[in-house]
């Protein structure tokens, strides 16, 4: 079912911010989310950000870039970002699109993401149980 999402709430669980994107996001609301996450971290420090995209049916290059920029911005504010719950159809499409989400940590679901943040608080790429960032998948 297609549902537009006007505003994405940012929830706090101890020192982790949890963002669940549901439905289709208008460009301006994706950009607003980017600002909201970083403002939350600056207001009240967080060590991690988990972005749940399990309800997102389409990630195009715009939303992919926003996710990568949230992760990069949060990193500058000393918080790690993990994108959780990407649908297989979205993963297949992103690879074919050639979207290189370099440096973006992913987890299969929110629970795994929270565990990763707890067990591996230091940034480390390509750990066990973690899907690595996409390398160049272009033709």
């Amino acid at each position, binding site marked *: 079912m*297609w549902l537009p999402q006007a505003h994405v709430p940012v929830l706090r669980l101890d020192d982790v911010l949890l963002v669940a994107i549901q439905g289709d996001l*208008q*460009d301006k609301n994706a950009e607003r989310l980017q600002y909201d996450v970083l403002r939350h971290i600056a207001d009240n420090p967080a060590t991690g950000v988990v972005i749940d995209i399990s309800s997102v049916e*389409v990630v195009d290059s*715009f939303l992919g870039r926003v996710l990568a920029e949230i992760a990069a911005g949060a990193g500058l504010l000393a918080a790690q970002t993990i994108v959780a719950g990407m*649908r297989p*159809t979205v993963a297949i499409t992103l690879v074919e699109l050639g979207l290189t989400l370099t440096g973006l940590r992913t987890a299969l679901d929110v629970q795994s993401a929270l565990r990763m943040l707890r067990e591996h608080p230091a940034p480390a790429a390509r750990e066990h149980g973690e899907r690595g960032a996409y390398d160049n998948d272009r033709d």
Partner: protein
Amino acid sequence: MTTTGTDTHRGSPTCLPIRSDMDLMWIRQEVRRLATEAQFSLVQQTKLVTAASELARNTLVHGGGGHMEATVLNEGVHTAVRLVFADSGPGIADVDQAMSDGYTSGGGLGLGLGGARRLVHDFRLDSEPGRGTTITVVMWHGGVPPTRQAI
């Protein structure tokens, strides 16, 4: 239009404006609906909607807005969705350059055109500097029928 033999039966096209990022959402919704109607698999639906989102944003950002025309095609047992994105913007002077990954004249990743082409079966770009750009893409249910190379 209804014809016989191997000619293509076309459903009535729907036309949607591309004037704002809100319109991009309507485009994605409509393309998803048509892909479902054409009984595309979930992967095919996702690829087509993603390609449409890239191309519609291209129309909006680089073409200064325009419209999308969407049609379900039937050829025998084969079904396809055809999408035409048209703008009357500045056009593309160097099509090869615009199609290459990493090239961007805007603020994006430069994956829009080349990426969208990889997601669909047929991709045709018509553009002339000063006369706008028209991009036509077709995706077939289950793959391109052997009798048909391009539309």
